[in-house]
């Protein structure tokens, strides 16, 4: 991939990468990690193999690897949201429950669920991002969705 082509690729994909990281870690960390994603991708562009998937999952793969070092930050933010006073914050009522459910997922399940829900990646693309078999993506996503659904329904029942 030529250097000039890489700049075009940046313009095409930056917003998606940044938005995904910002939703998971907040804008400050996302700003640094999104930038780092593209400088690393540029440095590694010769290793990019189009047969293993498109550019998008390749970039999300780099972003997700960088994000792994910040799982604790993400969990702290999720934990803070579980204590949110939704009326005062004007947030949707299910937000604290959703945060709690996401925080309770394993990091592998959370990655799959959020790459699916927030990055709009297909199963096969998620498999490329995480370097796991397609079947693993399916089973993790199934477990993650079931867990979140159960947590929300349980809370609804408790709310009465």
């Amino acid at each position, binding site marked *: 991939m030529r250097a000039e082509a890489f700049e075009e690729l*940046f313009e095409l994909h930056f917003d998606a990468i940044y938005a995904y990281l910002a939703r998971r870690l907040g804008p400050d*960390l996302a700003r640094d990690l*999104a930038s780092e994603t593209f400088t690393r991708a540029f440095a590694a562009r010769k290793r990019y193999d189009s047969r293993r998937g498109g550019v998008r999952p390749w970039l999300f793969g780099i972003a997700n690897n960088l994000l792994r070092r910040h799982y604790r930050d993400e969990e702290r933010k999720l934990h803070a949201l579980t204590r949110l006073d939704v009326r005062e914050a004007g947030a*949707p009522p299910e937000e604290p429950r959703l945060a709690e459910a996401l925080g309770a997922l394993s990091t592998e399940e959370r990655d799959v669920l959020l790459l699916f829900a927030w990055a709009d990646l297909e199963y096969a693309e998620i498999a490329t991002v995480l370097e796991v078999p397609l079947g693993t993506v399916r089973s993790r996503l199934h477990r993650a969705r079931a867990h979140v659904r159960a947590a929300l329904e349980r809370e609804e029942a408790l709310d009465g």
Partner: protein
Amino acid sequence: MDELALLGEFRLEDAAPNGAREHARSRLRAAVARHRRRRRRELVAVVFVAAAIVAGAAYGVVRELVIGDPPPEEVKRALARFGHEAELIPYPRPEDSRVEDARVAAVLESSVGPAYLFSVPNARALCGWVWIEGQRGYQGRPDMSGVCGSSRETFFAVSRQPVDGQLVQLLAGKASDEVERVTVRFGERAVDIPLTGRWFFAELAEEPTALVTYNVAGRVVDEHEIRLPPSQIAPAPQPHPAGQARKVAEISARDSEVIVLEVAPASDGGYCMTVHSDRRRPNGGCSVPKPRPREIGVSAMNFGGAPGGVLLLVGSVGSDIATLELRYENGRVAPVPLGEGWALFEVEHADYVEGRRPVSLAGRDTSGREIATKRLPWAKAGG
């Protein structure tokens, strides 16, 4: 219930526009530009490849660090050595780095490779330490430069380091909380420096003249003039020897090492003092004031550095002091010989440990009356 629809609405916090795209684009363009320069140099570089591989193998290739990572072990060790760990009798000091709290604050793809800015707190301040990956100085340790300041103020430094025949100029610093934008002026021209958290880190191709910070309303928070590099300023006159050096003391230290103290009058009215032996590099300087009549001007000297160095007590005493003695934690007292008012004394290696350490010097006049005392630094720290 559709958990995916709910997730679609869910956000940790608003992803407010924070110049992320511009920041990333400028970093990427810098990387692309460096790549192009490197390609032009490739042909010339081929002949150096073998040497580079040898050097890389010797030192190990440093990892891919990102913001928030702890520094590599060798950097941690170097930071620790800037503090008390380099002393023969270590004692905690406020300026000791809290190495375990050190983190990568910013990463820069400089023209000579990756450079890191580490945030390193100590008991008094927050410091930023800069390291161009792979650069090593004394005894092969990471060659680093640092700047410290209060977390409430903007502080920064411009370091200039020769790398492969090229002078690399790095700006590193931290902005105070109210700062929204940092610019560097080059005469009439101003360039924005992106903030990474509160830190800023950039390579400067020209000589900067000022650093200006702005608040969210665009008002100037503070303006700092950046002075010309030392090479362009007339050097301040330094004290220098103003006469012939003469030997005033000589001791036979452990392993029969002969250590000599030489002094010469200095141009500022004080002394130049040099300690040397046939086994180590000399140590000393020309900023030694003459002690007042009842003052002890004898200090500890780490001759040769930890861990293999020799701990010496070196200096002179005021004219009213006839004898000098050294007192230890365990109550022992040892005389410190004086020659023409000068002392050169080796602290035994066995006395470096807690419980046996020397703690103070006491001076007596000709009648034997104690007229001066001086506590040694590790005793002062209560350690």
